């Protein structure tokens, strides 16, 4: 199997419409295009068709119209080539199953193994490296239910790494996860981006997006905007995507200039806030680690 064929890695979604058998039209004429080496956020409210679009990318639902292509090939072919990896949400996994951390990570290698799914020494080596990378090697013999939320997430991240895919899909990766794991996930995503992979993150947590994503797709049944993050994340687009769901706090009479000039403290109880400056540009951005450092 040639996991490193010369063709360029792209994701092309072209005019995709998904209508379920009960007549519900989940997404309509969605189109966007992503190229190798990017971390893209898929942002939308619940029921916006976000998860349907994810399913279309994984080949679980067949678009009623349009194409989903990975490196110009249909999704089903991409699956067979081990191009797609998926990191599930915690509630999608039954943690009572009698499997160890090691068993789970080896499942990422099944696509490379023979029909008896016997792990070669290479499979074991890659699985070990993947576990080391997320600092879970010492936990390899634990039953998966005996882990903390963050550890659980890292095990499934290791499985995705072991799969050596080109595209990695993460569904709400920061739900129920400690800060240490959150940072580890972000570091890992940047590493994978540097290797030329496409990482697609589905999330409703707006504020964290500018920390690690360089592209975004805003969806509300239709794709409202897509492209580089600072072009997409404008107040106008976000209002369109989230409608009445978002809470707006306008600091009309900002005292920034009267005081120390630059720094603002924003205290929030739960999810990270998104801070936009005057004119709607992104105010808060984690510039130290981002690849291209778009100055607002």
């Amino acid at each position, binding site marked *: 199997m040639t996991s490193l064929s010369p063709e360029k890695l792209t994701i092309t979604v072209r005019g995709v419409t998904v209508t379920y*058998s009960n007549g519900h039209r989940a997404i309509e004429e969605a189109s966007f295009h992503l190229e190798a080496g990017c971390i893209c956020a898929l942002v939308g409210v619940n029921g916006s068709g976000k998860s349907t679009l994810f399913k279309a990318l*994984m*080949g*679980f639902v067949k678009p009623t119209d349009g194409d989903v292509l990975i490196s110009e090939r249909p999704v*089903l072919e991409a*699956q*067979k080539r*081990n191009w*797609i*990896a*998926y990191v*599930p949400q915690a509630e*999608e*996994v*039954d943690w009572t*199953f*009698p*499997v*160890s951390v090691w*068993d789970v990570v080896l*499942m990422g290698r*099944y*696509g490379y193994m023979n*029909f*008896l*799914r016997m792990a070669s020494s290479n499979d074991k080596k890659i699985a070990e490296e993947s576990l080391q990378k997320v600092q879970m090697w010492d936990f390899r013999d634990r*039953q998966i239910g005996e882990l903390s939320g963050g550890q659980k997430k890292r095990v499934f991240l290791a*499985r995705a790494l072991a*799969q050596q895919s080109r595209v990695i899909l993460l569904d709400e990766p920061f739900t129920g996860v400690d800060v240490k794991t959150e940072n580890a996930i972000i570091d890992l995503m940047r590493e994978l981006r540097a290797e030329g992979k496409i990482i697609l993150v589905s999330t409703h947590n707006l504020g964290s997006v500018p920390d690690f994503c360089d592209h975004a797709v805003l969806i509300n049944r239709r794709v409202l905007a897509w492209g580089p993050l600072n072009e997409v994340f404008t107040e106008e687009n976000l209002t369109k995507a989230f409608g009445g769901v978002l809470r707006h706090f306008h600091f009309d009479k900002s005292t920034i200039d009267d005081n120390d000039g630059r720094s603002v403290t924003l205290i929030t109880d739960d999810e990270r806030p998104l801070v936009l400056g005057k004119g709607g540009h992104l105010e808060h951005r984690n510039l130290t680690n981002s690849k291209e450092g778009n100055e607002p």
Partner: protein
Amino acid sequence: MISDLLMPFQYEYMQKAIFVSALVGAVCGLLSCFLTLKGWSLMGDALSHAIIPGVVVAYGLGIPIALGAFVAGTLATGAIGWIKEMVAIRDDAIIGVVFSTFFAIGLLLISLYPSPINLKMIVFGNILGISDQDIVQLLAISALCLATIFIFWKDLFLWCFDPIQAQVLGFPVRLLKFMLLTLLTLTAVAALQTVGVCLVVAMLITPGATAYLLSDRFGTMMIIALFLGSLTSFCGAYLSYFFDGSVGGSIVVLQTSLFLIAWIFAPKHGILAMKGFKMKSLRLEFK
């Protein structure tokens, strides 16, 4: 004394009953691991009833009963899937309606057309009077099921544990589901002849449930369940000779006894171990 204990083995019908039971118990035990984890207990019960019309027709036509059972089982699961798509009723209600209908058709067929099988055989099994032809069929079914599970257990387990991953890897998930359903149908036929329709589901669930309590690894769980299924069936059939009781009854009572013992004494998941754990943490708190 020893000759008393070996008495059951002096009769050919008891030899057959004991060894066939042990084999069927082994296959059922192995499959029970998948069913307990997949949550298919009700499905096992449903299929074991739904295959009856197929068994009756196959007997009447003189074709292998496994074939008839397979056709009826596939029709039943197909009907369940089809109704699920068409009508908005809960799954368990659909399964309940379909399997009792199939069972009823089976009973009707038995009562309308005279055939070598009677209701008693269906309900209680017929292991003591099993024909050589049926033994050959049971051997074939068991060999097929054992071979399939041996080759595909990792794929089947992945599909049970994480169907999304199985699909992302491009595995034929529909085929895996069909494979498990077919294994279930075939094993149900085997178990039907051993313990009868009412007790099939016990053979198909209890060893797996017991093994689950005793292990944290699927591989170990399968070995334990295989061993338990076969041992309890062997002993159950053997012991039934002495008190002249029902073979199926004694097998299932044995299996349940072992389950209860495991439930109480299992090293990690048993109630004693859990209590001990609580006591320990309490003691730590008060230190």
